[in-house]
C-alpha cells in the first residue's frame, strides 16, 4: 500500500453562470441608488419649482412625466423621491434584520421554554394585520418618518427572528454543530461562528422582499399622511397629491406608482439572486 498522500480532485472551476436575476437587480438597484444619492444629476428641473405656465400638462418632450397642479415637473419629483423611498427601504428594515437575526439565533439555539414564549409573541404579532398595527403605533407616536421606523421596527423583527430561529434549530441538529460542542467551543462561538452563517440565507433573502414591502408601506403611510410629510417628494405622497385629478391628469399618480413597481421588482430580483449566490455547496 502506498504511503503517499490521497489524491484530491482539482479545484472545481467556479464556472457558475452569472444569474440573469443578478444582472437585473444590479441594474435596477444601481440606478435607484444613483438617483437617491445624486438626484440633481438626473432631474431636469428643480422638483419644488412652480411653473404657472405649465400646470397639469400631460407627458411631453419638455416634461416626460407631465407636470402637477403647481406646474412642478413630475419626472424630477419622482427622481427626487428616490432619496426618501430608498432611505425608507434601508432604514425601516436594517434594524429589524439585525435585531431579529440575533434574537432568532439565540431562541433557535436555546430552544425549550424560551422558544415557547417566543412562539406566543410571534403568534400575537402575526395575527394582527401588519399595516393596521403600524398605523396604530404611528397614530400614537405621531406622523413622520422617524416614528414610522420605530413602528415598523417594533413589529418587523419578529419575522426575521422566526426565519432565523427555525433555520438555526435545523442546523443545531446537524453533526457539525455537535462536533463544535464536542470540541468544547463556547455557545456564542457555536451560534455566531458556526450556526448563523449557515442559517442566515433565508433572512437575507427576506430582507430584500422586506425592503420592497417597506417602500410600499412607506408609500401607503405617505399616502395616508402618516409617513413622509409634504412637500417632501415621496412616492406615496405624490400619488396622494394626484388622487383628486385621476380622471383628468392620470400621470401625476401613475408615474410614481410605476417607480414603486420597478424598485420593488429590483429588490425581488436581488432576493432571487442572493438566494442563488448564498446557496451552500454540500
Amino acid at each position, binding site marked *: 500500500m502506498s504511503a503517499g498522500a490521497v489524491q*484530491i480532485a482539482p479545484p472545481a472551476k467556479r464556472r457558475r453562470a452569472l444569474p440573469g436575476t443578478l444582472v437585473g437587480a444590479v441594474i435596477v438597484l444601481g440606478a435607484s441608488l444613483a438617483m437617491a444619492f445624486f438626484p440633481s444629476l438626473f432631474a431636469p428641473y428643480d422638483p419644488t419649482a412652480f411653473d404657472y405656465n405649465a400646470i397639469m400638462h400631460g407627458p411631453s418632450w419638455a416634461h416626460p412625466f407631465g407636470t402637477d397642479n403647481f406646474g412642478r415637473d413630475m419626472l424630477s419629483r419622482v427622481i427626487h423621491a428616490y432619496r426618501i423611498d430608498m432611505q425608507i427601504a434601508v432604514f425601516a428594515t436594517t434594524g429589524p434584520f439585525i435585531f431579529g437575526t440575533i434574537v432568532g439565533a439565540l431562541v433557535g439555539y436555546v430552544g425549550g421554554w424560551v422558544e415557547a414564549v417566543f412562539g406566543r409573541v410571534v403568534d400575537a404579532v402575526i395575527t394582527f394585520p401588519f399595516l393596521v398595527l403600524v398605523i396604530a403605533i404611528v397614530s400614537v407616536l405621531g406622523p413622520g418618518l422617524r416614528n414610522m421606523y420605530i413602528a415598523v421596527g417594533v413589529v418587523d423583527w419578529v419575522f426575521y427572528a422566526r426565519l432565523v430561529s427555525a433555520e438555526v434549530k435545523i442546523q443545531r441538529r446537524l453533526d*457539525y454543530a*455537535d462536533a*463544535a460542542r464536542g*470540541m468544547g467551543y463556547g455557545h456564542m462561538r457555536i451560534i455566531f461562528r458556526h450556526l448563523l*452563517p449557515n442559517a442566515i440565507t433565508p433572512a437575507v433573502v427576506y430582507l430584500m422582499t422586506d425592503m420592497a414591502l417597506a417602500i410600499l408601506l412607506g408609500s401607503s403611510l405617505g399616502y395616508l399622511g402618516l409617513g413622509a410629510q409634504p412637500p417632501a417628494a415621496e412616492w406615496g405622497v405624490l400619488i396622494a397629491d394626484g388622487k383628486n385629478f385621476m380622471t383628468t391628469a392620470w400621470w401625476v399618480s401613475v408615474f410614481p406608482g410605476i417607480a414603486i413597481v420597478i424598485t420593488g421588482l429590483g429588490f425581488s430580483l436581488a432576493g432571487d439572486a442572493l438566494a442563488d449566490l448564498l446557496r451552500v*455547496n454540500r
Partner: protein
Amino acid sequence: MRDMPLISVEGVSKRFRLPRTASDILTGRPPAAVHALNNVDLEVHRGETLGIVGESGCGKSTLARCLVRLLEPDEGLVRFDGKDIGLLPQAERRAFNRRVQMIFQDPYSSLNPRMSVRQVLSEALSVHAMRPKADIPARITELLGLVRLPADAANRYPHEFSGGQRQRIGIARALAVEPEVLVADELVSALDVSVQAQVINLLLDLQERLKLTVVFVAHDLRLVRHISHRVAVMYLGKVVETGPTEALFATPRHPYSKALLDAAPELDPARQTRVAAARGELPNPLDLPTGCLFNTRCPFAFERCFAERPNLSNRGPAHFAACHLTDFGKPTPATIAAQ
C-alpha cells in the same frame, strides 16, 4: 485486579420523551418515551479499541454521545479518569472536551459547509491553545499529512471533497487537539467498501502511532471484529455481552450475540446456511418486554426470562453475558479441540 479503566460507564440510562399526544392529554398518561439506554455498564481501558456493535435502535450511538457528554444520562454516570464527567468544574470540563474526541458518521453534515479546512483546524488549535499562533500553519500541514491529505487541501471547502476525504478531515479535526480517546460513531458506514478499507487502515495506523484509545461504534460485525480488542454487543439499550474479541466471536455466550454473528453473511460461499439466524423483529421500543429484553425472539427463553431481567455475569476471562442460561454457548471439549 486490573488497572483503573480510563472510562467507565456505570448504570447509565437515557430516555427520549416523545411529544405529548392528544390522547396522552385526554387520558392523563405521561407521554411515551423511547428507552434508548437501559442501565448500561461498560469500561474502556487505556490504549485499547473497544467495539460497540448492535443493530439500529440498540442505543449504541446514544451511548457514544453520552461518552463525550453530548448527551446527559438520565440515570447513572460516566467516569473519565475516575471522575464523574457530569460534575467536572469548568476548567476540567474543557480539558475533558479536548481529551475525548468524537468522529461522526455522516461525512456530509459533520463539517461546517461554510468553513475551509484551514478554518476548521485552526479554530480547534487556537480555541484550545494547542500551539502558538505562529506555529498553526505548520501544524495544519502536519495534521493533513497525518490523515494523508495534501497540504493544499487546507484552502478547500468541504463540498470539494469525497465522502472518504471528508472523514479524514473529521479525523484531522479530532486529532488537532491531541486527544487520548477517539469515539468513532459509524465512521465508515456511509462510504464505499474500497474507501472504507482506506479509512480503517488509517485509523489502525494512527492508533498505533499516537497510542490512542478508540471506541468504535458500528453495525458492521466484520469491521468491529477486525479492529477491536474487546467488543460489547448491545440490544435494545442494554449491553448483553462483552468480552475479548476472539472469545466473543468464537463462543458467543448470549443467544442474541450468536444470532447476530450467524446472521452476518460470511465471505466464504461454502459456509452458507439456509436457516435464518434470528426469528422475529425488534419489539416496539416504546413498550419494552418485561424480563429479558430478548425474550420475544429468543428460541431458548424459559419462565425466568419473562420475569427477571438478567444482569451481566462472568463467563470467562473478561467475558460477561447477561443471560439466565449461564451455560449457553459454553465451549465443550469438542469445540475447544476444533479451534
